[in-house]
Protein backbone atom coordinates (compact mmCIF):
# COMPACT_ATOMS: atom_id res chain seq x y z
CA UNK A 1 0.00 0.00 0.00
CA UNK A 2 1.35 3.41 -0.96
CA UNK A 3 2.02 5.71 1.96
CA UNK A 4 0.87 9.22 1.28
CA UNK A 5 3.05 11.71 3.10
CA UNK A 6 1.01 14.66 1.93
CA UNK A 7 -2.74 14.50 1.55
CA UNK A 8 -4.68 17.55 0.45
CA UNK A 9 -8.40 17.08 0.17
CA UNK A 10 -10.76 19.60 -1.43
CA UNK A 11 -8.51 22.43 -0.42
CA UNK A 12 -9.45 25.98 -1.38
CA UNK A 13 -7.88 29.31 -0.57
CA UNK A 14 -9.65 32.62 -0.86
CA UNK A 15 -8.14 36.02 -0.14
CA UNK A 16 -10.24 39.07 0.62
CA UNK A 17 -14.01 39.21 0.46
CA UNK A 18 -16.77 40.79 -1.58
CA UNK A 19 -15.53 42.71 -4.60
CA UNK A 20 -11.89 42.18 -3.63
CA UNK A 21 -12.29 38.42 -3.23
CA UNK A 22 -9.62 36.39 -4.99
CA UNK A 23 -9.89 32.61 -5.20
CA UNK A 24 -6.20 31.72 -5.33
CA UNK A 25 -6.86 28.01 -5.06
CA UNK A 26 -10.01 26.30 -6.27
CA UNK A 27 -11.07 22.92 -4.97
CA UNK A 28 -7.84 20.96 -5.13
CA UNK A 29 -6.87 17.50 -4.02
CA UNK A 30 -3.33 16.16 -4.13
CA UNK A 31 -1.58 13.15 -2.65
CA UNK A 32 2.18 12.70 -2.70
CA UNK A 33 3.80 9.44 -1.60
CA UNK A 34 7.20 8.62 -0.12
CA UNK A 35 9.95 8.76 -2.74
CA UNK A 36 7.66 10.43 -5.24
CA UNK A 37 8.85 13.64 -6.90
CA UNK A 38 6.27 15.90 -8.52
CA UNK A 39 6.55 19.22 -10.26
CA UNK A 40 3.96 21.96 -10.31
CA UNK A 41 4.31 24.33 -13.21
CA UNK A 42 2.24 27.28 -14.27
CA UNK A 43 2.34 31.01 -14.87
CA UNK A 44 2.99 33.56 -12.14
CA UNK A 45 -0.05 34.17 -9.96
CA UNK A 46 -1.66 30.86 -10.86
CA UNK A 47 -1.62 29.66 -7.23
CA UNK A 48 1.48 27.42 -7.25
CA UNK A 49 3.15 29.03 -4.26
CA UNK A 50 -0.15 29.23 -2.38
CA UNK A 51 -0.53 25.49 -2.80
CA UNK A 52 3.06 24.91 -1.68
CA UNK A 53 2.73 27.05 1.43
CA UNK A 54 -0.54 25.35 2.40
CA UNK A 55 1.13 21.98 1.83
CA UNK A 56 3.95 23.07 4.13
CA UNK A 57 1.64 24.32 6.86
CA UNK A 58 2.76 27.91 6.47
CA UNK A 59 -0.83 29.00 6.01
CA UNK A 60 -4.15 27.29 6.43
CA UNK A 61 -6.66 26.63 3.65
CA UNK A 62 -10.04 28.37 3.54
CA UNK A 63 -11.69 24.98 3.12
CA UNK A 64 -10.54 21.41 2.93
CA UNK A 65 -8.11 19.32 4.86
CA UNK A 66 -4.34 18.89 4.80
CA UNK A 67 -2.44 16.00 6.38
CA UNK A 68 1.31 15.76 6.69
CA UNK A 69 2.57 12.33 7.71
CA UNK A 70 -0.97 11.54 8.78
CA UNK A 71 -1.30 14.62 11.03
CA UNK A 72 -4.20 16.97 10.28
CA UNK A 73 -2.38 20.28 10.25
CA UNK A 74 -5.51 22.25 9.36
CA UNK A 75 -6.65 21.84 12.94
CA UNK A 76 -3.38 22.94 14.51
CA UNK A 77 -2.27 26.34 15.77
CA UNK A 78 0.89 28.04 14.48
CA UNK A 79 3.02 26.67 17.31
CA UNK A 80 2.04 23.07 16.58
CA UNK A 81 2.25 23.57 12.82
CA UNK A 82 5.78 24.85 13.42
CA UNK A 83 6.59 21.59 15.22
CA UNK A 84 5.17 19.57 12.33
CA UNK A 85 7.30 21.54 9.89
CA UNK A 86 10.39 20.95 12.00
CA UNK A 87 9.68 17.22 12.25
CA UNK A 88 8.43 16.42 8.77
CA UNK A 89 9.05 19.20 6.23
CA UNK A 90 12.17 20.36 4.45
CA UNK A 91 12.11 23.64 2.53
CA UNK A 92 14.30 24.65 -0.39
CA UNK A 93 13.69 28.20 -1.47
CA UNK A 94 14.47 30.25 -4.54
CA UNK A 95 17.12 32.40 -2.85
CA UNK A 96 18.47 29.58 -0.70
CA UNK A 97 17.50 29.22 2.91
CA UNK A 98 20.90 29.50 4.49
CA UNK A 99 21.79 31.54 7.55
CA UNK A 100 24.42 34.02 6.35
CA UNK A 101 26.58 33.93 9.45
CA UNK A 102 26.83 30.15 9.73
CA UNK A 103 29.36 27.99 7.92
CA UNK A 104 28.03 25.07 5.89
CA UNK A 105 28.85 22.74 8.73
CA UNK A 106 27.12 25.03 11.27
CA UNK A 107 23.99 25.21 9.10
CA UNK A 108 23.52 21.52 9.85
CA UNK A 109 24.65 21.85 13.48
CA UNK A 110 21.85 24.38 13.97
CA UNK A 111 19.34 21.69 13.09
CA UNK A 112 20.94 19.42 15.67
CA UNK A 113 20.35 22.17 18.23
CA UNK A 114 16.63 22.41 17.53
CA UNK A 115 15.66 18.87 16.55
CA UNK A 116 16.55 15.30 17.37
CA UNK A 117 16.51 12.44 14.88
CA UNK A 118 18.60 14.09 12.21
CA UNK A 119 21.08 12.16 10.09
CA UNK A 120 23.93 10.29 11.73
CA UNK A 121 27.52 11.38 11.16
CA UNK A 122 27.99 8.76 8.47
CA UNK A 123 24.73 9.66 6.74
CA UNK A 124 25.70 13.32 6.81
CA UNK A 125 29.10 12.53 5.33
CA UNK A 126 27.45 10.48 2.60
CA UNK A 127 24.94 13.23 1.83
CA UNK A 128 27.66 15.87 1.60
CA UNK A 129 29.76 13.67 -0.66
CA UNK A 130 26.77 12.99 -2.85
CA UNK A 131 26.02 16.70 -3.13
CA UNK A 132 29.70 17.51 -3.65
CA UNK A 133 29.95 19.93 -0.74
CA UNK A 134 32.43 18.11 1.47
CA UNK A 135 35.12 20.69 0.85
CA UNK A 136 32.77 23.59 1.57
CA UNK A 137 32.08 22.77 5.22
CA UNK A 138 33.97 25.74 6.66
CA UNK A 139 32.75 28.25 4.11
CA UNK A 140 30.05 30.87 4.65
CA UNK A 141 27.12 31.23 2.20
CA UNK A 142 28.60 34.44 0.81
CA UNK A 143 31.73 32.53 -0.20
CA UNK A 144 29.70 30.04 -2.26
CA UNK A 145 28.47 30.20 -5.83
CA UNK A 146 24.72 30.07 -6.54
CA UNK A 147 24.89 26.37 -7.42
CA UNK A 148 26.90 25.56 -4.30
CA UNK A 149 24.43 27.46 -2.16
CA UNK A 150 21.50 25.50 -3.53
CA UNK A 151 23.36 22.22 -3.03
CA UNK A 152 23.95 23.20 0.59
CA UNK A 153 20.28 24.19 0.85
CA UNK A 154 19.31 20.72 -0.38
CA UNK A 155 21.64 19.15 2.18
CA UNK A 156 20.10 21.30 4.88
CA UNK A 157 16.58 20.40 3.82
CA UNK A 158 17.37 16.69 3.76
CA UNK A 159 19.55 16.60 6.88
CA UNK A 160 16.57 16.53 9.21
CA UNK A 161 15.22 13.42 7.45
CA UNK A 162 12.00 15.11 6.33
CA UNK A 163 9.19 13.01 4.94
CA UNK A 164 8.07 15.94 2.79
CA UNK A 165 10.41 18.12 0.75
CA UNK A 166 9.04 21.36 -0.68
CA UNK A 167 11.10 23.28 -3.21
CA UNK A 168 9.95 26.68 -4.43
CA UNK A 169 11.75 27.65 -7.66
CA UNK A 170 14.96 26.00 -6.41
CA UNK A 171 16.81 26.73 -9.64
CA UNK A 172 15.48 30.20 -10.45
CA UNK A 173 18.70 31.99 -9.62
CA UNK A 174 20.92 29.51 -11.48
CA UNK A 175 22.13 29.23 -15.06
CA UNK A 176 20.96 26.23 -17.08
CA UNK A 177 23.95 24.02 -16.30
CA UNK A 178 23.67 24.63 -12.58
CA UNK A 179 19.88 24.30 -12.71
CA UNK A 180 20.08 20.82 -14.23
CA UNK A 181 22.80 19.83 -11.81
CA UNK A 182 20.81 20.96 -8.78
CA UNK A 183 17.60 19.35 -10.04
CA UNK A 184 19.36 16.06 -10.66
CA UNK A 185 20.86 16.10 -7.17
CA UNK A 186 17.52 17.02 -5.64
CA UNK A 187 15.78 14.16 -7.37
CA UNK A 188 18.50 11.68 -6.51
CA UNK A 189 18.69 12.72 -2.85
CA UNK A 190 14.90 12.79 -2.44
CA UNK A 191 14.54 9.31 -3.85
CA UNK A 192 17.35 7.98 -1.69
CA UNK A 193 15.89 9.54 1.41
CA UNK A 194 12.43 8.37 0.45
CA UNK A 195 10.98 11.86 0.80
CA UNK A 196 7.80 12.98 -0.93
CA UNK A 197 8.92 15.97 -2.99
CA UNK A 198 7.07 18.86 -4.58
CA UNK A 199 8.97 21.19 -6.86
CA UNK A 200 7.33 24.41 -7.97
CA UNK A 201 9.04 25.74 -11.08
CA UNK A 202 8.68 27.88 -14.16
CA UNK A 203 11.29 25.89 -16.03
CA UNK A 204 9.50 23.13 -17.94
CA UNK A 205 12.84 21.53 -18.89
CA UNK A 206 13.33 20.55 -15.25
CA UNK A 207 10.15 18.48 -15.32
CA UNK A 208 12.15 15.78 -17.08
CA UNK A 209 13.47 14.81 -13.65
CA UNK A 210 10.14 14.23 -11.92
CA UNK A 211 7.58 11.45 -11.71
CA UNK A 212 4.49 13.59 -12.26
CA UNK A 213 3.96 17.02 -13.66
CA UNK A 214 0.99 19.09 -12.54
CA UNK A 215 -0.03 22.31 -14.13
CA UNK A 216 -1.69 25.06 -12.16
CA UNK A 217 -3.88 27.49 -14.10
CA UNK A 218 -6.06 30.07 -12.33
CA UNK A 219 -6.07 28.12 -9.10
CA UNK A 220 -6.96 24.80 -10.68
CA UNK A 221 -4.50 21.91 -10.61
CA UNK A 222 -4.31 19.46 -13.56
CA UNK A 223 -2.20 16.37 -13.89
CA UNK A 224 -0.15 17.02 -17.00
CA UNK A 225 2.13 13.98 -17.35
CA UNK A 226 3.03 10.91 -15.36
CA UNK A 227 6.03 8.71 -15.90
CA UNK A 228 8.35 6.14 -14.27
CA UNK A 229 10.58 7.81 -11.68
CA UNK A 230 13.99 6.15 -12.04
CA UNK A 231 13.88 6.00 -15.82
CA UNK A 232 12.96 9.62 -16.19
CA UNK A 233 16.17 10.76 -14.47
CA UNK A 234 18.38 9.23 -17.14
CA UNK A 235 15.99 10.21 -19.90
CA UNK A 236 15.99 13.78 -18.70
CA UNK A 237 19.74 13.90 -18.59
CA UNK A 238 20.01 12.40 -22.08
CA UNK A 239 17.46 14.88 -23.28
CA UNK A 240 19.44 17.74 -21.71
CA UNK A 241 22.73 16.59 -23.26
CA UNK A 242 21.06 16.30 -26.61
CA UNK A 243 19.88 19.88 -26.18
CA UNK A 244 23.51 21.00 -26.03
CA UNK A 245 24.60 20.47 -22.40
CA UNK A 246 27.94 18.90 -21.53
CA UNK A 247 29.38 16.61 -18.87
CA UNK A 248 31.01 19.43 -16.90
CA UNK A 249 27.80 21.32 -16.71
CA UNK A 250 26.10 18.59 -14.76
Amino acid at each position, binding site marked *: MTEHVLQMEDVTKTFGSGRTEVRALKKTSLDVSRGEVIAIIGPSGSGK*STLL*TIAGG*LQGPTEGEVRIAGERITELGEKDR*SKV*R*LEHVGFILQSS*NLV*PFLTVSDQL*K*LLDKVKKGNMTKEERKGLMEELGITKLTEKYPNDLSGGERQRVAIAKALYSNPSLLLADEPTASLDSDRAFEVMKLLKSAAVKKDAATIVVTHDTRLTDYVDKVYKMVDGVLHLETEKGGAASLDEGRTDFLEKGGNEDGI
Partner: protein
Amino acid sequence: MFLAWREIRQSKLRFALVTAVLLLVSYLVFFLSGLASGLAGLNREAVDKWQADGIYLTDESDKSLTQSMMEVDLADDVVADETAVLAQTNLIADNGDAKSGVALFGIRPDEFIMPEPTEGDEFSDEFEVIASDSLKEEGFSVGDELDLSGSEVTLTITGFTDDARFNAAPVLYMNLEDFEKVRPGAAAMAQQEGSAENPDGQPAETDQGLPGETVEQPEMVNAIVVKGSQPDEVPDDLEYLESETFIENLPGYTEQNLTLTFMIYFLFAISAAVVAIFLYVLTVQKISMFGVMKAQGISSAYLSRSVIAQTFILAVIGVLIGFGLTVLTGQFLPAAVPVSFDYGMMAIYGAVLIAVAILGALVSVWTIVKIDPLEAISG
Protein backbone atom coordinates in the same frame (compact mmCIF):
# COMPACT_ATOMS: atom_id res chain seq x y z
CA MET B 1 23.80 30.65 22.57
CA PHE B 2 24.90 28.76 19.43
CA LEU B 3 23.36 31.21 16.97
CA ALA B 4 24.17 34.21 19.17
CA TRP B 5 27.86 33.48 19.45
CA ARG B 6 28.26 32.43 15.82
CA GLU B 7 26.74 35.69 14.63
CA ILE B 8 28.89 37.77 16.95
CA ARG B 9 32.01 36.01 15.65
CA GLN B 10 30.98 36.55 12.04
CA SER B 11 29.84 40.19 12.37
CA LYS B 12 32.50 41.49 14.72
CA LEU B 13 32.39 45.15 13.73
CA ARG B 14 28.62 45.39 13.97
CA PHE B 15 28.53 43.90 17.43
CA ALA B 16 31.66 45.76 18.51
CA LEU B 17 29.69 48.96 17.97
CA VAL B 18 26.83 47.76 20.19
CA THR B 19 29.36 46.66 22.79
CA ALA B 20 31.14 50.02 22.56
CA VAL B 21 27.90 51.84 23.35
CA LEU B 22 27.30 49.61 26.35
CA LEU B 23 30.92 50.04 27.38
CA LEU B 24 30.71 53.83 27.30
CA VAL B 25 27.41 53.90 29.16
CA SER B 26 28.71 51.52 31.82
CA TYR B 27 31.95 53.53 32.07
CA LEU B 28 29.92 56.65 32.69
CA VAL B 29 27.60 54.90 35.16
CA PHE B 30 30.53 53.44 37.11
CA PHE B 31 32.34 56.74 37.13
CA LEU B 32 29.25 58.63 38.27
CA SER B 33 28.63 56.06 40.97
CA GLY B 34 32.25 56.50 42.07
CA LEU B 35 31.75 60.24 42.10
CA ALA B 36 28.49 59.91 44.03
CA SER B 37 30.16 57.60 46.52
CA GLY B 38 33.21 59.87 46.80
CA LEU B 39 31.16 63.01 47.29
CA ALA B 40 28.93 61.24 49.78
CA GLY B 41 32.07 60.14 51.63
CA LEU B 42 33.29 63.73 51.77
CA ASN B 43 30.11 64.64 53.54
CA ARG B 44 29.61 61.73 55.85
CA GLU B 45 32.80 59.85 56.60
CA ALA B 46 33.38 61.59 59.95
CA VAL B 47 29.84 60.66 60.97
CA ASP B 48 30.26 57.08 59.79
CA LYS B 49 33.49 56.93 61.77
CA TRP B 50 31.52 57.44 65.00
CA GLN B 51 29.66 54.17 64.37
CA ALA B 52 26.83 55.74 66.32
CA ASP B 53 23.16 54.83 66.15
CA GLY B 54 21.80 58.32 66.42
CA ILE B 55 22.20 61.90 67.44
CA TYR B 56 20.27 64.36 69.54
CA LEU B 57 19.79 67.91 68.27
CA THR B 58 17.55 70.64 69.59
CA ASP B 59 14.13 70.34 68.04
CA GLU B 60 14.20 73.99 66.97
CA SER B 61 17.34 73.37 64.89
CA ASP B 62 15.39 71.69 62.11
CA LYS B 63 17.91 68.83 61.99
CA SER B 64 20.83 71.21 61.42
CA LEU B 65 23.94 70.57 63.51
CA THR B 66 25.16 74.16 63.31
CA GLN B 67 21.77 75.54 64.39
CA SER B 68 21.51 73.19 67.33
CA MET B 69 22.89 74.58 70.60
CA MET B 70 22.31 72.96 73.96
CA GLU B 71 23.85 72.88 77.38
CA VAL B 72 26.24 70.03 77.83
CA ASP B 73 24.43 68.88 80.96
CA LEU B 74 21.55 67.72 78.81
CA ALA B 75 23.67 64.69 77.97
CA ASP B 76 22.91 63.45 81.49
CA ASP B 77 19.21 63.30 80.60
CA VAL B 78 19.81 61.14 77.55
CA VAL B 79 19.34 57.42 78.01
CA ALA B 80 21.68 55.35 75.82
CA ASP B 81 24.38 52.71 76.09
CA GLU B 82 27.03 55.31 75.31
CA THR B 83 26.84 59.04 74.83
CA ALA B 84 29.29 61.58 73.45
CA VAL B 85 28.86 65.32 73.31
CA LEU B 86 29.87 67.22 70.21
CA ALA B 87 30.51 70.88 69.59
CA GLN B 88 31.14 71.91 66.03
CA THR B 89 32.03 74.97 64.05
CA ASN B 90 33.58 75.77 60.70
CA LEU B 91 36.77 77.79 60.39
CA ILE B 92 39.66 78.49 58.10
CA ALA B 93 42.92 76.97 59.34
CA ASP B 94 46.22 78.48 58.19
CA ASN B 95 49.62 76.90 58.86
CA GLY B 96 51.49 79.71 57.17
CA ASP B 97 51.90 77.85 53.89
CA ALA B 98 48.43 76.57 53.24
CA LYS B 99 44.88 77.43 54.17
CA SER B 100 41.97 75.08 54.38
CA GLY B 101 38.37 75.29 55.41
CA VAL B 102 37.95 72.88 58.31
CA ALA B 103 35.23 71.56 60.57
CA LEU B 104 36.33 71.87 64.18
CA PHE B 105 34.89 69.21 66.52
CA GLY B 106 34.98 69.76 70.23
CA ILE B 107 34.81 66.38 71.93
CA ARG B 108 35.64 64.71 75.21
CA PRO B 109 38.68 62.41 74.84
CA ASP B 110 37.13 59.72 77.02
CA GLU B 111 33.98 59.38 74.87
CA PHE B 112 33.45 57.03 71.97
CA ILE B 113 33.72 59.56 69.14
CA MET B 114 37.35 60.26 70.04
CA PRO B 115 39.32 59.18 66.93
CA GLU B 116 42.35 56.90 66.88
CA PRO B 117 45.32 58.70 65.33
CA THR B 118 46.80 56.93 62.32
CA GLU B 119 49.85 59.15 62.57
CA GLY B 120 51.21 61.14 65.50
CA ASP B 121 49.51 61.27 68.90
CA GLU B 122 46.23 62.12 70.54
CA PHE B 123 45.77 65.66 71.81
CA SER B 124 46.66 66.05 75.46
CA ASP B 125 47.60 69.68 76.11
CA GLU B 126 45.55 72.80 75.59
CA PHE B 127 44.75 73.75 71.98
CA GLU B 128 46.05 70.56 70.45
CA VAL B 129 44.14 68.85 67.65
CA ILE B 130 44.02 65.60 65.74
CA ALA B 131 43.45 66.45 62.09
CA SER B 132 41.92 64.68 59.14
CA ASP B 133 44.68 63.03 57.11
CA SER B 134 43.21 64.64 53.98
CA LEU B 135 44.93 67.82 55.19
CA LYS B 136 48.30 66.19 54.58
CA GLU B 137 47.64 66.39 50.83
CA GLU B 138 47.03 70.13 51.29
CA GLY B 139 50.42 70.68 52.90
CA PHE B 140 49.68 70.24 56.60
CA SER B 141 51.79 68.05 58.87
CA VAL B 142 52.16 67.00 62.50
CA GLY B 143 53.51 69.88 64.58
CA ASP B 144 51.98 72.58 62.40
CA GLU B 145 50.58 75.56 64.25
CA LEU B 146 47.29 76.71 62.86
CA ASP B 147 45.94 80.22 62.92
CA LEU B 148 42.18 80.25 62.84
CA SER B 149 39.80 82.67 61.20
CA GLY B 150 37.69 84.56 63.72
CA SER B 151 39.79 83.43 66.66
CA GLU B 152 42.98 84.54 68.35
CA VAL B 153 43.80 81.02 69.37
CA THR B 154 46.53 78.96 67.69
CA LEU B 155 46.06 75.19 67.45
CA THR B 156 48.78 72.57 67.12
CA ILE B 157 48.41 69.37 65.10
CA THR B 158 49.52 66.40 67.20
CA GLY B 159 48.33 63.68 64.87
CA PHE B 160 46.27 62.66 61.87
CA THR B 161 43.35 60.30 61.59
CA ASP B 162 41.68 58.76 58.57
CA ASP B 163 38.08 59.02 57.28
CA ALA B 164 37.57 62.35 58.95
CA ARG B 165 35.73 64.72 56.67
CA PHE B 166 32.44 66.32 57.51
CA ASN B 167 30.32 68.15 54.95
CA ALA B 168 33.31 68.07 52.59
CA ALA B 169 35.60 69.79 55.13
CA PRO B 170 38.54 68.09 56.90
CA VAL B 171 37.85 67.72 60.62
CA LEU B 172 40.03 68.96 63.46
CA TYR B 173 39.26 67.17 66.72
CA MET B 174 40.02 69.02 69.92
CA ASN B 175 39.16 68.86 73.57
CA LEU B 176 35.72 70.25 74.34
CA GLU B 177 37.17 72.21 77.28
CA ASP B 178 39.26 74.29 74.86
CA PHE B 179 36.63 74.44 72.17
CA GLU B 180 34.66 77.25 73.80
CA LYS B 181 37.74 79.49 73.60
CA VAL B 182 38.07 78.84 69.91
CA ARG B 183 34.47 79.07 68.79
CA PRO B 184 34.01 82.26 66.72
CA GLY B 185 32.63 85.00 68.92
CA ALA B 186 34.21 83.44 71.98
CA ALA B 187 35.92 86.73 72.82
CA ALA B 188 32.65 88.61 72.69
CA MET B 189 31.04 85.91 74.76
CA ALA B 190 33.78 86.32 77.30
CA GLN B 191 33.13 90.03 77.46
CA GLN B 192 29.49 89.39 78.06
CA GLU B 193 30.30 87.21 81.01
CA GLY B 194 29.08 88.99 84.04
CA SER B 195 26.15 90.58 82.29
CA ALA B 196 24.44 87.41 81.21
CA GLU B 197 20.72 87.48 81.08
CA ASN B 198 18.03 84.90 81.28
CA PRO B 199 15.89 84.45 78.23
CA ASP B 200 13.24 86.67 79.80
CA GLY B 201 15.70 89.57 79.87
CA GLN B 202 16.36 89.43 83.61
CA PRO B 203 19.95 89.18 84.81
CA ALA B 204 20.95 85.56 85.24
CA GLU B 205 21.17 84.14 88.67
CA THR B 206 23.85 81.54 89.13
CA ASP B 207 25.33 79.37 91.81
CA GLN B 208 28.14 81.84 92.06
CA GLY B 209 26.13 84.87 92.99
CA LEU B 210 23.33 87.25 92.53
CA PRO B 211 22.11 89.08 89.42
CA GLY B 212 24.67 91.51 88.17
CA GLU B 213 27.61 89.58 89.56
CA THR B 214 30.21 87.94 87.33
CA VAL B 215 28.90 84.61 85.95
CA GLU B 216 30.22 81.86 83.69
CA GLN B 217 28.47 80.87 80.49
CA PRO B 218 27.31 77.27 80.63
CA GLU B 219 29.34 74.89 78.41
CA MET B 220 27.45 74.61 75.14
CA VAL B 221 27.51 71.79 72.61
CA ASN B 222 25.75 71.25 69.30
CA ALA B 223 24.74 67.62 69.67
CA ILE B 224 24.79 64.48 71.73
CA VAL B 225 25.85 61.41 69.80
CA VAL B 226 24.59 58.08 71.11
CA LYS B 227 25.08 54.36 70.73
CA GLY B 228 22.34 52.01 71.77
CA SER B 229 18.76 51.19 70.95
CA GLN B 230 16.21 53.74 69.81
CA PRO B 231 15.21 55.85 72.80
CA ASP B 232 11.78 55.46 74.38
CA GLU B 233 11.86 58.96 75.75
CA VAL B 234 13.48 62.04 74.28
CA PRO B 235 14.30 64.89 76.65
CA ASP B 236 12.27 68.08 76.24
CA ASP B 237 13.46 70.44 73.53
CA LEU B 238 15.58 67.72 71.90
CA GLU B 239 14.99 65.66 68.81
CA TYR B 240 16.45 62.22 68.15
CA LEU B 241 17.70 61.44 64.64
CA GLU B 242 19.05 58.16 63.43
CA SER B 243 22.55 58.55 61.97
CA GLU B 244 21.31 58.04 58.42
CA THR B 245 18.60 60.66 58.85
CA PHE B 246 21.13 63.06 60.29
CA ILE B 247 23.43 62.51 57.30
CA GLU B 248 20.58 62.94 54.82
CA ASN B 249 19.89 66.33 56.37
CA LEU B 250 23.45 67.59 56.03
CA PRO B 251 23.37 70.70 53.83
CA GLY B 252 23.36 69.74 50.15
CA TYR B 253 23.93 66.04 50.80
CA THR B 254 20.58 64.70 49.62
CA GLU B 255 20.36 67.16 46.71
CA GLN B 256 23.81 66.17 45.48
CA ASN B 257 23.12 62.45 45.83
CA LEU B 258 19.74 62.70 44.17
CA THR B 259 21.25 64.59 41.23
CA LEU B 260 23.91 61.96 40.64
CA THR B 261 21.48 59.10 41.23
CA PHE B 262 19.06 60.59 38.73
CA MET B 263 21.88 60.86 36.21
CA ILE B 264 22.67 57.19 36.74
CA TYR B 265 19.02 56.21 36.40
CA PHE B 266 18.72 58.24 33.22
CA LEU B 267 21.78 56.44 31.91
CA PHE B 268 20.04 53.14 32.59
CA ALA B 269 17.05 54.32 30.59
CA ILE B 270 19.30 55.62 27.82
CA SER B 271 21.25 52.37 27.61
CA ALA B 272 18.00 50.39 27.43
CA ALA B 273 16.79 52.65 24.61
CA VAL B 274 20.11 52.54 22.72
CA VAL B 275 20.34 48.76 22.97
CA ALA B 276 16.70 48.43 21.96
CA ILE B 277 17.24 50.61 18.88
CA PHE B 278 20.48 48.90 17.86
CA LEU B 279 19.11 45.40 18.25
CA TYR B 280 15.82 46.32 16.64
CA VAL B 281 17.64 47.61 13.56
CA LEU B 282 19.75 44.44 13.47
CA THR B 283 16.63 42.31 13.86
CA VAL B 284 14.73 44.15 11.15
CA GLN B 285 17.64 43.52 8.80
CA LYS B 286 17.29 39.81 9.56
CA ILE B 287 13.50 39.51 9.33
CA SER B 288 13.72 37.51 6.12
CA MET B 289 16.28 35.14 7.63
CA PHE B 290 14.25 34.70 10.80
CA GLY B 291 11.16 34.13 8.65
CA VAL B 292 12.88 31.36 6.70
CA MET B 293 14.07 29.79 9.95
CA LYS B 294 10.56 29.94 11.35
CA ALA B 295 9.26 28.37 8.14
CA GLN B 296 11.71 25.55 8.72
CA GLY B 297 10.09 25.02 12.10
CA ILE B 298 12.63 26.74 14.31
CA SER B 299 10.54 28.20 17.10
CA SER B 300 10.23 31.88 17.98
CA ALA B 301 11.31 30.91 21.49
CA TYR B 302 14.63 29.54 20.21
CA LEU B 303 15.27 32.62 18.08
CA SER B 304 14.27 34.93 20.93
CA ARG B 305 16.57 33.12 23.34
CA SER B 306 19.33 33.63 20.80
CA VAL B 307 18.75 37.41 20.70
CA ILE B 308 18.61 37.53 24.51
CA ALA B 309 21.80 35.48 24.75
CA GLN B 310 23.45 37.79 22.23
CA THR B 311 22.45 40.83 24.25
CA PHE B 312 23.66 39.18 27.42
CA ILE B 313 27.06 38.41 25.90
CA LEU B 314 27.46 41.94 24.52
CA ALA B 315 26.26 43.57 27.75
CA VAL B 316 28.56 41.46 29.93
CA ILE B 317 31.57 42.23 27.71
CA GLY B 318 30.68 45.95 27.58
CA VAL B 319 30.10 46.19 31.33
CA LEU B 320 33.28 44.27 32.20
CA ILE B 321 35.43 46.44 29.95
CA GLY B 322 33.65 49.54 31.29
CA PHE B 323 34.41 48.36 34.83
CA GLY B 324 38.06 47.74 33.96
CA LEU B 325 38.39 51.15 32.34
CA THR B 326 36.80 52.84 35.33
CA VAL B 327 39.18 51.19 37.79
CA LEU B 328 42.11 52.02 35.50
CA THR B 329 41.02 55.63 35.23
CA GLY B 330 40.70 55.77 39.01
CA GLN B 331 44.41 54.96 39.31
CA PHE B 332 45.38 58.08 37.37
CA LEU B 333 42.95 60.59 38.85
CA PRO B 334 44.38 63.38 41.02
CA ALA B 335 43.51 63.14 44.71
CA ALA B 336 41.40 66.30 44.37
CA VAL B 337 38.81 64.35 42.37
CA PRO B 338 36.44 62.92 44.97
CA VAL B 339 36.00 59.48 43.46
CA SER B 340 35.57 56.46 45.66
CA PHE B 341 34.63 53.16 44.09
CA ASP B 342 32.14 51.09 45.99
CA TYR B 343 32.60 47.75 44.25
CA GLY B 344 29.44 46.29 45.72
CA MET B 345 27.39 49.16 44.32
CA MET B 346 29.25 48.95 41.00
CA ALA B 347 28.38 45.25 40.79
CA ILE B 348 24.72 46.13 41.35
CA TYR B 349 24.84 48.87 38.71
CA GLY B 350 26.59 46.47 36.31
CA ALA B 351 23.88 43.88 36.87
CA VAL B 352 21.20 46.53 36.35
CA LEU B 353 22.87 47.62 33.10
CA ILE B 354 22.86 44.03 31.84
CA ALA B 355 19.24 43.69 32.89
CA VAL B 356 18.13 46.88 31.13
CA ALA B 357 20.04 45.86 28.01
CA ILE B 358 18.09 42.61 28.02
CA LEU B 359 14.94 44.64 28.59
CA GLY B 360 15.86 46.62 25.46
CA ALA B 361 16.26 43.36 23.56
CA LEU B 362 12.63 42.49 24.30
CA VAL B 363 11.61 44.86 21.51
CA SER B 364 13.50 42.60 19.11
CA VAL B 365 11.99 39.51 20.70
CA TRP B 366 8.54 40.94 20.06
CA THR B 367 9.52 41.63 16.45
CA ILE B 368 10.66 38.04 16.02
CA VAL B 369 7.49 36.65 17.54
CA LYS B 370 5.43 38.75 15.12
CA ILE B 371 7.34 37.64 12.01
CA ASP B 372 5.09 35.72 9.66
CA PRO B 373 7.22 33.03 7.97
CA LEU B 374 4.85 33.05 5.00
CA GLU B 375 5.49 36.74 4.36
CA ALA B 376 9.22 36.26 4.80
CA ILE B 377 9.26 33.46 2.24
CA SER B 378 6.94 35.20 -0.19
CA GLY B 379 8.91 38.43 0.14
